[in-house]
């Protein structure tokens, strides 16, 4: 009798513990269902719409996100460089390449919670398309690092993991048909502070 009770308790513990923990884990990881990958960049075009999958819906409810609408824009997040290594705040990176059609875009360096990196200075860790210098072929080269650099410089600070968030506003790529032949800038590591 006691043995039966023990087995029943064991089943219940696995069911409730395992079920709860697996949901918590699934919501914690950045990658998820419904993601679109272009190079190192990931976007969730469906997040925050009634058509989203249950995981996205639970994440929206848990984190209190108000996602951008289709007519507003589309956000891409990068967590790795072109070599597949995690992005680090103590490293220097170069973003180079063309950007898809949009009225304008913004780029910022983010921490784990996707909030902007605190630089401790008046200069934000963010750039936008109206203020960047362009190459003759209309592509853009952006240097990311702690130390001032010529050309377009995105200031970062601190150490640890970093994410890049690239958002296009009022863009045709936000409608799903436009996403097939979009190319986004490459992220190349240029070196690291020791």
């Amino acid at each position, binding site marked *: 009798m006691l043995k039966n009770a023990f087995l029943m308790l064991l089943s219940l513990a696995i069911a*409730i513990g395992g079920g709860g923990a697996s949901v918590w884990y699934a919501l914690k990881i950045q990658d998820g269902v419904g993601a679109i990958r272009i190079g190192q960049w990931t976007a969730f075009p469906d997040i925050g719409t009634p058509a989203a999958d249950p995981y996205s819906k639970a994440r929206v409810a848990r984190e*209190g996100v108000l996602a951008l609408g289709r007519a507003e824009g589309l956000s891409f997040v990068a967590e790795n460089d072109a070599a597949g290594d995690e992005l680090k705040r103590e490293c220097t990176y170069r973003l180079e390449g063309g950007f898809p059609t949009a009225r304008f875009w913004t780029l910022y360096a983010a921490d784990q919670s996707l909030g902007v990196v605190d630089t401790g200075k008046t200069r934000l860790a963010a750039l936008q398309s109206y203020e960047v210098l362009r190459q003759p072929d209309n592509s853009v080269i952006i240097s990311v690092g702690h130390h001032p650099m010529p050309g377009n410089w995105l200031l970062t600070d601190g150490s640890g993991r970093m994410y890049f968030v690239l958002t296009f506003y009022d863009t045709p790529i936000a409608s799903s048909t436009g996403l097939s032949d979009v190319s986004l800038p490459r992220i190349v590591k240029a070196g690291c502070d020791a």
Partner: protein
Amino acid sequence: MRSFYAALRRLFHAVLLGLVGAGIVHIIVLLLVPEFSERDAWSRLSMASDLYRMNRLDAEAGGAPVVKSVDPLFYATACRFDLGEGMVRVKAPGNVPFWSVSVYDRNGHNVYSFNDHTATGGVLDAVVLTPAQMIDVRKDLPEDLQGAVFVEAPIDEGIFVIRSFVPDDSWKPIVSRFLDQSSCELQDF
């Protein structure tokens, strides 16, 4: 020996049952999270301000941002409304480089969005209403609603968000004023 195997089999049976149960619990918890979350956008906003009150979402206005993860080059403001009480009208005066608007339902799902290119003359003047209220309005369109953008949303409670682009520091006061002067009120009809 035989009883040992029997016990082992029962243990295995119990673990298997537990795993199947874990799958069921996973699905149930996942579907219940949106229903019971007290950290969703609506709950956070309702702690910060009343219905029909514009509330800044960016940290610029002082204090921690109410709803996180807005672009650092953007300012945003939001108000909650209840279409059960009547239709809601949102206006903001002034000219800024870019603004966009989203209507969310109670669960924070984006129901409708548009930007300044959609509006007449780039002026933010929108009315959110249910399809039933739309039928009434269509019968006799009031004079002062002629230029407004009508957002037909099949929802009761919802959130209206205005986002506006801040290209550089010199635009900060202008964009701030644009958002602070925006209004969100019940429209009599």
